[in-house]
């Protein structure tokens, strides 16, 4: 966001509030490839072009048909017979002058034959409406070069998405109900020193009622600690008792009536969260024991080097705790007291991050990378978020499709409810088989709907048999899929376009957590489900 950043800041104001300027930067340096400019495909791209993705390339060997014009906003009557890649690219680019559009009017199969490395230059590849064999080839190419692939499909009133990525690491997972990192159960020495400055029993009334609640809780906890053999309140009863203990500290006026001290009320209200035990969350422990954290090599990504550095910190200086987050919530207090307390946390977090930085430099040196190749800013961001790190590892498409590696037991157990969304997955596999055998999808023309029913059922059964899946699918679903005739209703494309673009933004910005690995949407009942296939 170098030049024209003011205009951009204005234009992207609303979304910067969600993913921040570094998220926006990641978006603006991304290059996304769309395979096939179907209605779903262009809807996804629209939702990436509007927020300002860096560039996109459309790969599509088809020419625009009348049917395309009927459900695709980015194609019009005048473009019938022209390259679908080119026309849709031109209209999509009109949406945002900051975005660069490219197109390749070739079939993906041709590209995979002649230049498979073509697909390996993208940040992310999104594929729609590919035949099973092409999809498997594309997936294999991208899997081996570690490029994420997002497969999307609107089939009648059913939506399908599959994310295929070996490993996706998330620093900013934006948890919904994150607890503050206050360390009141194990106050660090700087906090203990700061607490010494306060003597709640000998204070002016004004100061007493403007003391931050964190200090109030910490002070009373110290006393409790002494009186209860070094324990902190753990059970509900003890916590209630501790609350009463704090309440008794509220100043009373000359008539013995407690004063209105909002900071004490805040303290009482926050007892439960503030007393949360400080420990390394299990998701982070899993990361610490991961092989990739243990073996740092030249190939290790910044994420793993940082994770390893934090692990070393935790084991050593942190005495079992992660680097301090360094933020405290807003609270009732006067500015002076608040800022001093805030600085205690901030300084400690800064020091922790510098210690981590030393580990990072050492690790970088050990693999022959310059010590400054991970910036201080990134180290701080990582430390601030280290309690929320997430890793998503998806299975490859090859594993999902392999007769020996498919998740057969899971599928059978999901199908104990014959209306489970997994039935749509089975039906899509069946229509793909139909397509392979007959060179077309079932029920594309109305007169075929009835005659294709039996054929589709045969395809379904042969699929189930091949995989040894002993289950039955209701005829209604087979009938319904024949009726769809592989139509791609625009409104389903719109829904899927929004949902898929959101996942794409998560993959690109590495913020928030992507689903793993299959998402199915049933538009008839407005239900959806995710599966690990």
């Amino acid at each position, binding site marked *: 966001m170098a030049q024209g*950043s003011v*205009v951009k800041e204005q*234009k992207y*104001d*609303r979304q910067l*509030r*969600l993913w921040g*300027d570094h998220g926006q930067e990641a978006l603006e340096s991304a290059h996304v490839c769309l395979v096939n400019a179907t*209605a779903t495909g262009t809807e996804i791209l*629209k*939702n990436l072009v*509007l*927020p300002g993705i860096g560039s996109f390339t459309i790969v599509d060997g088809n020419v625009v048909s009348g049917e395309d014009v*009927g459900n*695709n*906003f980015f194609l019009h009557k005048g473009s019938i017979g022209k390259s679908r890649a080119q026309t849709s690219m031109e209209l999509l680019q*009109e949406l*945002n002058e900051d975005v660069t559009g490219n197109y390749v009017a070739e079939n993906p199969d041709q590209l995979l034959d002649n230049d498979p490395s073509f697909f390996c230059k993208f940040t992310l590849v999104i594929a729609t409406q590919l035949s099973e064999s092409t999809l498997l080839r594309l997936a294999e190419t991208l899997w081996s070069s570690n490029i994420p692939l997002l497969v999307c499909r609107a089939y*009648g*009133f059913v939506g399908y998405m599959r994310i295929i990525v070996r490993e996706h690491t998330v620093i900013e997972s934006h948890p919904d*109900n994150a607890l503050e990192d206050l360390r009141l159960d194990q106050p660090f020495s700087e906090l203990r020193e700061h607490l010494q400055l306060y003597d709640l029993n000998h204070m002016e009334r*004004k100061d007493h*009622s*403007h003391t931050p609640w964190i200090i109030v809780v910490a002070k009373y906890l110290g006393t409790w600690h002494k009186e209860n053999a070094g324990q902190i309140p*753990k059970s*509900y009863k003890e916590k209630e008792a501790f609350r009463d203990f704090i309440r008794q500290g509220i100043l009373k006026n000359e008539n013995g009536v407690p*004063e*209105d001290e909002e900071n004490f009320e805040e303290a009482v*209200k926050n007892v439960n*969260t503030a007393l949360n035990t400080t420990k390394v969350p299990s998701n982070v422990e899993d990361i610490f024991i991961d092989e990739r954290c243990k073996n740092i090599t030249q190939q290790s990504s910044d994420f793993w080097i940082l994770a390893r550095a934090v692990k070393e910190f935790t084991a050593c200086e942190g005495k079992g705790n992660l680097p301090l987050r360094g*933020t405290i*919530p*807003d609270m009732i207090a006067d500015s002076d007291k608040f*800022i001093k307390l805030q600085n205690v946390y*901030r300084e400690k977090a800064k020091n922790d991050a510098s210690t981590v930085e030393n580990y990072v430099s050492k690790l970088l040196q050990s693999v022959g990378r310059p010590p400054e190749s991970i910036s201080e*800013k990134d180290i701080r961001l990582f430390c601030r978020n280290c309690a929320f790190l997430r890793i998503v590892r998806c299975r490859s498409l090859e594993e999902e499709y392999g007769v020996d590696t498919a998740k057969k037991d899971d599928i059978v157990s999901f199908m104990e409810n014959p209306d489970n969304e997994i039935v749509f997955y089975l039906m899509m596999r069946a229509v793909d088989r139909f397509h392979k055998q007959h060179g077309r999808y079932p029920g594309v023309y109305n007169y075929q709907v009835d005659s294709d029913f039996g054929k589709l059922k045969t395809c379904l059964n042969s699929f189930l048999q091949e995989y040894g899946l002993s289950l039955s699918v209701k005829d209604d679903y087979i009938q319904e899929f024949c*009726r*769809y*005739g592989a*139509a*791609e*209703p*625009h*409104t389903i*494309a*719109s*829904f*899927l*376009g*929004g*949902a898929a*673009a*959101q996942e794409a933004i*998560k993959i690109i910005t590495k913020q928030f957590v992507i*689903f793993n690995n299959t998402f199915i*949407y049933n538009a008839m*009942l*407005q*239900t959806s489900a*995710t599966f690990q296939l």
Partner: protein
Amino acid sequence: MAVTGALRTELAEAVSSCRVLVVGAGGIGCELLKNLLLTGFSNLDVIDLDTIDVSNLNRQFLFQKKHVGRSKAQESVLQFCPGASITAYHDSIMNVEYDVEFFRKFTLVMNALDNRAARNHVNRMCLAADVPLIESGTAGYLGQVTVIKKGVTECYECQPKPTQKTFPGCTIRNTPSEPIHCIVWAKYLFNQLFGEEDADQEVSPDTADPEASWEPTEAAQRANASNEYGDIKRVSTKQWAKSTGYDPVKLFNKLFKDDIRYLLTMDKLWRKRKAPVPLDWASLHNSEKDSTEQNNASSVGLKDQHVLDVAGYAQLFSQSVETLRDQLSEKRDSAELVWDKDDPPAMDFVTSAANLRMYIFSMNMKSRFDIKSMAGNIIPAIATTNAVISGLIVLEGLKILSGNIEQCRTIIKEKFGMVAPDVQIEDGKGTILISSEAGETEANNNRKLSDFGIRNGTRLQADDFLQDYTLLINVLQSEELEKDVEFEVVGDAPEKAPQKPLEEGAKGITNGSDDGAQPSTSTAPEQDDVLIVDSDEESPSSSSDVSMETVTLKRKLPDEEAVSNKRKRMEPSAEQEDDIIALD
């Protein structure tokens, strides 16, 4: 068209012949128009009062930079789908000419609005005209779609919505205690100085504050304490400001020194509160040099997200006053400026004035970015959520047209969840059933509810301290539950616990409305009643304490107590069940 494959013939005909009103051509509206036309709807009316702003362009794809300033309604329909008949109105739907007769002309009404007043209005008109309404809204990653049909579903106003937070005048004028109070004050001040004066938006100290309750003898003292003030008071703030030629220094000293000194004389106000500290332009500028200790952590990131120091805001205040004065004088006589969060000088003015006041009242100052959120009631809006929601609106529309109104669902993207519940019996003794502390109540897991004296009608209180969320559970007894169903929740499951305001501010769903002064996240914890009908069938207790339901409710009442208690439904559960669609 391609969709006929998926739509049954009768439905396809209904789609192409019916007339639909789309209210709003903003984020959802743009998507919705596109979806309707490409689904085969060809008879549309669209109405929107707004003109296009730069900050719309990240999602409202029917508009481009060259359209900024033009009518949303008219611009949105110009370009595409020449075959369809679309009527555009650049107007407010709340205008009287859009009466019940007008609404009756439509088969369906779809709301794509951003404020509650208009939503309420359209809701009432649709009920009066008996036309089905599809209501929708988005906020960040969240969104919702609801079908409203007279006599069949709840209407938009059946459930009370958190109302716009209003603040008592004296809080704004005399005793602000939260940043939002200072921001509201600064917006009022803008209007008092440059915009339309409004008696309800007074910014000077309020001498009628009941809390201040003056003693007559002290009045003279006070009058002496602020001589200058006495002169100013007789004329309006605007007249006075004009008479000084909008001199930034004079304005500054009046607002942030003299007015504050005057407030200090109302000493009753400050007995329990921390008293404000007046600022002085001259001394502020002398000490400017040693105010080098900037907020160290905020040296990276966007300019908007930095918090300046006091001197910086004093400077910004003075600059913005001068800019606004020039803007005002460029207009003809008696013309006024209108506050707009997307107008940089106006936003600078509110940022600086609000921050100076926050400083005076010992609050932590806020960045321009945060103040914009709060002052403009900004709800983060992105293309993806709008796309999802408008897809859903059309699907609901199709269901209505195919005559399946009972199939329509209220779709919300997230529901409630308890993170770490503590459950106690409301028996006066506070017997604890479940504790958030691991291990503390494990012994209870194999006991029956009756062992705790829980029977039909017992009230349980579940507290989730992590979320500051309390749920009252009335246990009812039933013998008629289906097999394997161990309990049933009657009545509405409450919405998710109000989230604590996060550092970044606004999160949480507010139906895309921008009429709440604060995001609904900051509302006080509400108490929701949930009724649970319990079956008397014995079942093995689960050992986990993951969720409230699995633990509490698997402990069953023994048979003898069940005899007299047939299933009682205390509350009809007439509403459709909420479906959860997890989109992220």
